[in-house]
């Protein structure tokens, strides 16, 4: 059984690390997951937990995962916005747990946004196919 005493122990262990973090907010990466009815029904909850567990497994203490409501593009849910300081916001669509983990490793850790998971990736593909035909 998990106890409050364990939390106290976690507090002692992590306090030093937390204090180091406080001084440096400039590299804060934000992941915002859509969690309205549409998002949740499409599977947003495990996607959000996958972002959190992958970021914490890799000890990415500069990453925060939060939630937002519906932004009116329900057919693309589950969706997430990734904000990296100094870069444009990137919206990822039709996510699942594996894709979420990939975004953490490819985009956030290694700095390569995952083009095929971004919003508009399908449209771009159709356009290029049509261009190929011509």
């Amino acid at each position, binding site marked *: 059984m998990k106890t*409050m005493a364990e939390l106290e122990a976690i507090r002692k262990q*992590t306090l030093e690390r*937390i204090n180091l973090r406080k001084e440096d907010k400039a590299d804060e990466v934000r992941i915002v997951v859509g969690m*309205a*009815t549409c998002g*949740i029904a499409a599977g947003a909850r495990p996607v*959000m937990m996958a972002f959190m567990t992958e970021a914490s497994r890799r*000890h990415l203490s500069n990453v925060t995962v939060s939630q937002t*409501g519906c932004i009116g593009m329900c057919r693309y849910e589950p969706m997430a916005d990734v904000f990296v300081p100094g870069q444009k916001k990137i919206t990822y669509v039709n996510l699942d747990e594996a894709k979420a983990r990939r975004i953490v490793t490819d985009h956030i850790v290694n700095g390569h946004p995952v083009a095929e998971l971004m919003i508009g990736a399908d449209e771009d593909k159709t356009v290029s196919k049509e261009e190929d035909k011509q």
Partner: protein
Amino acid sequence: MRDLSLQLMDLAQNSIQAGAGQVGISLALDETGKLTLMIRDDGCGMSAELLNQVHSPFVTGRTTRKVGMGIPLAQNNAASTGGGLEIRSAPGQGTELTLTYFTRHIDCPPLGDLAQTVAALILANPQCPEFRVSLTSQRGERALDTRELKQALGEVPLNTAEVIAWLMEAAQDMTRDIFGGELQ
């Protein structure tokens, strides 16, 4: 919604959107298999007029689109088991939403991953609101209160790796101890 835990996740968003400072969530299972799910918040509440319309999918507080499926889906889900949905609310007084499910009814959705819902709600809203989640069955009561967690943690935020792991395990323990074997 595929299961009750997702239903709870969805309805709790309404409390968050309503600007609640405290959200109380309780699930109580009695010996006949009746499950009462209650969400109580101190958010902005609803006017009598909105309260009357809230069961309609064509009413929503949102401005991005004109349909709101949360309440209608919840009501439909509960009613299909012989239970129902009740909302009490007034402007400035918060909202109390009660869903009843007869879990032995063949149409009752499974419980789903309740622990993940609890962890996700708390971790996605680490500052505000405060959550108190309490589970009750004949085996007793177990509760998780974010105020107590924050007190134990001091300046260490909830969404720290070690705390995330603790919270997920604590939520799983609690669900298994109270509902394990009774609700899947």
